[in-house]
């Protein structure tokens, strides 16, 4: 496996040593990582697993030498470090350029607005001579499979998977001995996940660099790594590393513990509530229909005083939403699935065609959901956005849940039940922004349901969720369906679609940038 010096492009794999290492974020009572002992030899490929709160991201940030100044909430202050964490025998901060870090959100992995400049950015910061930079840029773009793009291609025109591959190219151009990936594919569709995984595999084979990756979905990385390290949340007595060994051994020894922690172990689909006989559920009455619908997120453009309608991403879409029935909207990225769902939900104005509510749904509010007032909308069609934070409107979990009912003037009695059902009772006084990813998801579903809508629209509800949240969500939605709510979900998740049953609306790709 040892790559020749030429093919490796001068990459020397890095070693990692942790001895009793611990870290407490500023302003937190509990340490994020406590008493970590681990050795990673040069060229090893390690998958880090563990429940949320085990400090996986903290460790990765520390290895990248970016821990300490600012945490994710933008707060800074005094943090505590104990023990030692070394990359090639020195603290990571003194090893600038020895490691490259990729984070979850593709939008913040791009620094500059042109593809070539973005890849060159890291190499520039390491003071690589100009001619060498461009040679590295071309090589790195070829390695991640983006060499067909011109160097001045705008980075904003790339898909999520392409942005992550671009970030990888930017890392490769620095020639790091240690590649750190923090849930690099959590925000990507299945095609994007494979794109990024395969690009990482190619680059590792070529450079022989050390890899540490954090990811919930084990099956994606299992065959690429040669070691799995399972971390556990920091306590005073227990060591941070729970298990450490070859993937197959760790997965068989810790299978129960990992599934309990919500890790997606290969071959494991969490059990969900079975739907009742679909024909018996609800009335099956038509609530909402789309005919010849053309959709776009763009508003009409102004050319002087004239209005030019936007070019729709999807045209001529027909769909029916019925009480007690599930509708899954599927298709590749960029096909306009979310845009369609938002239009159906009365949040975007149709470019062409129409969305019409039947009398069962509109109850006197008019045919077109887009013209409804906000209060009229939420008690009829509820929409759960992909990013829960976008929908938080108060500073407390309880106020979030009461917000809809208070505006409507009824339905506050349902809040208690929702809190209970979605396991939020302990969190009523917490600030929504401080919750974990799974808790935020459950809260965002609960807040929308508090207004008792007859139609529930969800945009990628299972994206980046652990197996536990996934199972809870699927079971809860199947209950809602049986109780007569219509559920429309935009999703890439075939297992989720199967768990809910119902019809599928498959959208074909609109005009997209070639991968």
């Amino acid at each position, binding site marked *: 496996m040892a790559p020749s010096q030429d093919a490796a492009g001068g990459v020397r794999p890095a070693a990692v040593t942790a001895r009793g290492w611990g870290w407490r974020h500023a302003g937190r009572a509990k340490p994020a990582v406590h008493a970590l002992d681990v050795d990673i030899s040069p060229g090893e490929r390690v998958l880090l697993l563990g429940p949320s709160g085990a400090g996986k991201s903290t460790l990765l940030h520390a290895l*990248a*030498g*970016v821990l300490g*100044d*600012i945490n*994710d909430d*933008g707060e800074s202050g005094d943090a505590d470090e104990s023990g030692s964490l070394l990359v090639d025998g020195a603290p990571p901060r003194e090893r*600038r*350029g020895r490691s490259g*870090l990729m*984070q979850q*959100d593709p939008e*913040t*992995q791009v*620094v*500059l*607005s042109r593809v*070539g*400049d973005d890849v*060159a*950015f*890291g*190499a*520039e*910061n*390491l*003071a690589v001579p*100009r001619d060498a930079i461009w040679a590295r*840029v071309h090589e790195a773009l070829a390695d991640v499979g983006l060499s067909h793009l011109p160097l001045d291609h*705008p*980075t*904003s025109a790339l898909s999520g998977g392409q942005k992550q591959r671009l970030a990888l190219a*930017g*890392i490769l151009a*620095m020639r790091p001995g240690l590649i750190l990936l923090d849930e690099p594919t959590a925000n990507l569709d299945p095609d994007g996940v494979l794109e990024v995984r395969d690009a990482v595999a190619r680059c590792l084979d070529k450079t022989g660099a050390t890899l540490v990756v954090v990811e919930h979905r084990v099956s994606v990385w299992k065959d690429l790594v040669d070691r799995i390290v399972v971390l556990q949340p920091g306590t005073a007595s227990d060591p941070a590393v729970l298990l450490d060994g070859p993937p197959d051994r760790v997965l068989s020894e810790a299978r129960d513990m990992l599934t309990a922690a919500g890790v997606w172990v290969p071959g494991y689909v969490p059990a969900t509530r079975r739907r009742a006989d679909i024909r018996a559920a609800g009335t099956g009455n038509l609530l909402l229909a789309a005919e010849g619908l053309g959709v776009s997120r763009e508003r009409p453009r*102004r050319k*002087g005083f004239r209005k030019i309608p936007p070019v729709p991403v999807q045209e001529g879409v027909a769909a029916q939403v019925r009480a007690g029935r599930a509708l899954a909207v599927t298709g590749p990225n960029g096909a306009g699935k979310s845009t369609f769902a*938002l239009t159906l939900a009365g*949040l*975007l104005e149709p470019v062409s065609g129409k969305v019409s509510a039947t009398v069962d749904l509109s109850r006197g509010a008019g045919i077109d959901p887009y013209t409804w*007032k*906000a209060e009229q*909308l*939420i008690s009829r069609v*509820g*929409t*759960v*956005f992909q*990013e829960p*934070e*976008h*929908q*938080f*409107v108060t500073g407390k979990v309880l106020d979030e849940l009461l*917000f*809809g009912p208070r505006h*409507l003037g009824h339905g506050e009695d349902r809040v208690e039940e929702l809190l209970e059902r979605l396991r939020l009772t302990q969190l009523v006084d917490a600030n929504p922004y401080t919750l974990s990813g799974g808790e935020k998801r459950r809260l965002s579903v609960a*807040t*929308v349901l508090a*207004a008792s809508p007859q139609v529930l629209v969800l945009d990628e509800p299972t994206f980046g969720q652990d197996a536990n949240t996934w199972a809870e969500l699927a079971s809860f939605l199947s209950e809602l369906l049986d109780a007569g709510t219509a559920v429309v979900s935009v999703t890439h998740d075939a297992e989720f679609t199967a768990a809910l049953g119902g019809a599928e609306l498959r959208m074909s790709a609109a005009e997209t940038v070639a991968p």
Partner: protein
Amino acid sequence: MRQQLTLDGNRALLARANPLSKFAAVVLITAVLALSIDWVSASVALVFELMLFPLAGLTLSLLWQRGWPLILAAAIGGWSTAILAPDRGRILLDAGIWTMSEGSLQLGIGFLLRGFAIALPAVLLMSCTDPTDLADALAQKARLPHRFVLGTLAAMRLVGLMAEEWQTIGMARRARGVGSRGNVVQRVKATLGQSFGLLVQAIRRASRLAVTMEARGFGGGQRTWARESTFSVLDLWVVGGGLLMAGLALGAALATGSWNMVWLGS
């Protein structure tokens, strides 16, 4: 706004000039025009600016499409000056509280032309200058600290993202029952709430981007530049042209006796 103003793939002559020399020319012209409210210097500058359009790859219809708010603002400014400024000379229009005299009309036209003449160089500069090239020039040629320049450049890319985010948050909040329609008070309240949501997202994105940049070695002392910012003969022409335009505008105003320094009053 940035994406609207910068023309992608602009291959015009001025797009090849160094952003710093273009910036210097703009400052020269704008400085002269900012000193006086007269219509002679403004119209001389305006004529030259219009002649520069093809060199910057801009056309009148593109200008109208992208810059109509500026044009509208200049027109409104001129109109209100014409009717509200103290009257001098013959009264041309009398509509109760609004009167327009020869003097105030002249001042209004001066104001209108000056608005155009000051706004256009900036529009010209943006239309043929890539922000990345501007940053390169500011850091390499003007020797501004690269941390500051590149930090600003990276942040500007987030601005476009924030515009999309604004729309999404607006929809997400409507889905929670926060109406962005209704009376003025309701709208203001909704906008404030939406702004807070956007601010939270902006801070999160910015801190993540900062981590990305730091992880790519940003913030160290020494750094090289993949793109060399260079001056060429073209840049002499650009600065010379700017100087000439400023000089001609000033000269014409002085020669016709219409030079009217802002702080001296009239």
